[in-house]
């Protein structure tokens, strides 16, 4: 079996981290690795989980031809499942979802995420992003969220984000009494990260072949890396088999 692609690795790492009490796993737009993770979990460790796919379907059944990882989003063929995500009503029940996933343009030391863009300091935009979708709301209320950063360099992992789409800073979250559980993990092509005791993001593991110095060079702040930092446990043959044969049948993550 060929080695896992980075998106396959992301999917498997996410699926491994879901908690027993996670009942509703919601995936936003254009995050096929998160869709795959949710589907993979529902087929293996989380048979009772509902998977809500943003603007698409939820309730992915037995995954025989899982609609959650179709290569192109919102294909009407994906509109099958136990029910639909009603965009105008989804925010009426903030006790769900339990879990959500974000990407971002910039992530900072405190776990704050920016998807707005980079302002020019004069009321305009040096670099305009797509907009922040429902990041503010989901990060405020869901039990926990995962951040998947497709690139890891000093422009994306910064000391301080230019703007905050999702407030990760645990001290600020506590001060403002935000009800949700905040960041669970951050995944990048280099490793796995989580919020440490002081509220800064720390390295939890490095992916195979990545050295601590690679992460230091690619990170815009002095990131804490323990001397005995573990290597990310690689996907097992069994995990990859389920992912490829039953979840990502169209090879979207390859």
């Amino acid at each position, binding site marked *: 079996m060929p080695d896992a692609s980075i998106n396959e690795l992301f999917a498997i790492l996410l699926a491994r981290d879901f908690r027993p009490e996670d009942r509703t796993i919601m995936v936003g737009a254009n995050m096929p690795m998160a869709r795959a993770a949710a589907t993979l979990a529902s087929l293996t460790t989380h048979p009772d989980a509902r998977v809500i796919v943003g603007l698409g379907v939820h309730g992915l059944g037995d995954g025989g031809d899982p609609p959650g990882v179709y290569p192109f989003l919102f*294909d009407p063929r994906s509109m099958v499942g136990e029910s639909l995500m009603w965009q105008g009503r989804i925010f009426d029940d903030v006790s769900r979802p339990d879990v959500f996933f974000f990407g971002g343009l910039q992530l900072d030391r405190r776990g704050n995420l920016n998807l707005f863009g980079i302002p020019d300091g004069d009321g305009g935009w040096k670099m305009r992003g797509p907009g922040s979708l429902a990041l503010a709301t989901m990060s405020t209320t869901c039990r926990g969220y995962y951040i998947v950063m497709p690139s890891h360099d000093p422009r994306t992992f910064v000391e301080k984000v230019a703007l905050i789409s999702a407030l990760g800073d645990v001290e600020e979250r506590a001060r403002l009494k935000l009800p949700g559980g905040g960041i669970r993990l951050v995944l990048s092509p280099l490793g796995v990260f989580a919020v440490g005791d002081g509220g800064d993001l720390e390295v939890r593991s490095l992916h195979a072949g990545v050295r601590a110095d690679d992460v230091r060079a690619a990170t815009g702040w002095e990131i804490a890396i323990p001397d005995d930092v573990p290597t990310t446990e690689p996907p097992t043959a069994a995990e990859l088999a389920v992912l490829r044969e039953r979840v990502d049948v169209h090879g979207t993550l390859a």
Partner: protein
Amino acid sequence: MSPGRTSVVASLADAVGGIPDGATVGIGGAVTAGHPMALVRALARRGPRELTLVVPVAGIEVDILVAAGCVARVIGSYVGAEKVAAVGPVFRRAVQEGSVEVVDLDEAHVVAGLRAAGQGLPFLPWRGGVGTSYPQLNPALVEFDDPVRGERLLAVPALELDVALLYSEVSDAYGNAQPVGTAHMDALLGAAAARVVLQVDRVVSTDEIRRRPEATLFWRETAVVRAPFGTHPYSNAWLTADEEHLRAFVAAGRAGGEELSGYMTTHVDGPADHDAYLEAVGIRRIASLLI
């Protein structure tokens, strides 16, 4: 004896003809599905100026109207083309050049603002966004301490629309829409608008509507425009999104200049009507997208 019910079916040109310069226009659909693209192209052809667009989760309909010079301001939570382009290319350039203003809202703020407008309220409260940059980016979002439990909240002002451009697979001639699927935020956009222009693929008999009354959406003032395959290049219940077309548009949008004006000439300004647009796309392409 009843004089008979009054049809609200209108031509494409008539339906968008009354949208003046400076109007606030909501556009339905989400990302790559269910945008009323025939209405958007007709509006771009007519060319009103200084529009404010309210677009919950938008696609290239924003880019097309920006390219046509119609847009002063975009209010919404996202403008992009999903995996084809992280950010709408024409939108991005115009915002970075400063010719179009963007007013950021969380997706749930859009829901709250449209609901407030539909309910005749000045605002609705929301928690998500407290502690973020939203109030700084969009001063219309006011942080306040709620008078009941003293919690820090955001006041999301009503998003009152002059007109909402919406899509439904079918309706009858009287504006009873039966979209397939969730219809995204379309019900809310219609409720927030003084009037609705509804693009449909099929105008069916009211007897057909009566078979599934639970699926019907309707609004007070509605004009129905028949435009078969009119969501192209986006999807509806029978048509998948045209990824190749979207890629070509994004390439033209990024290039700007002659490439973008070439797209606009071929697909927006050039075709005299919706049928001519379909001819420009070609029957083979359309047929290949049918599910």
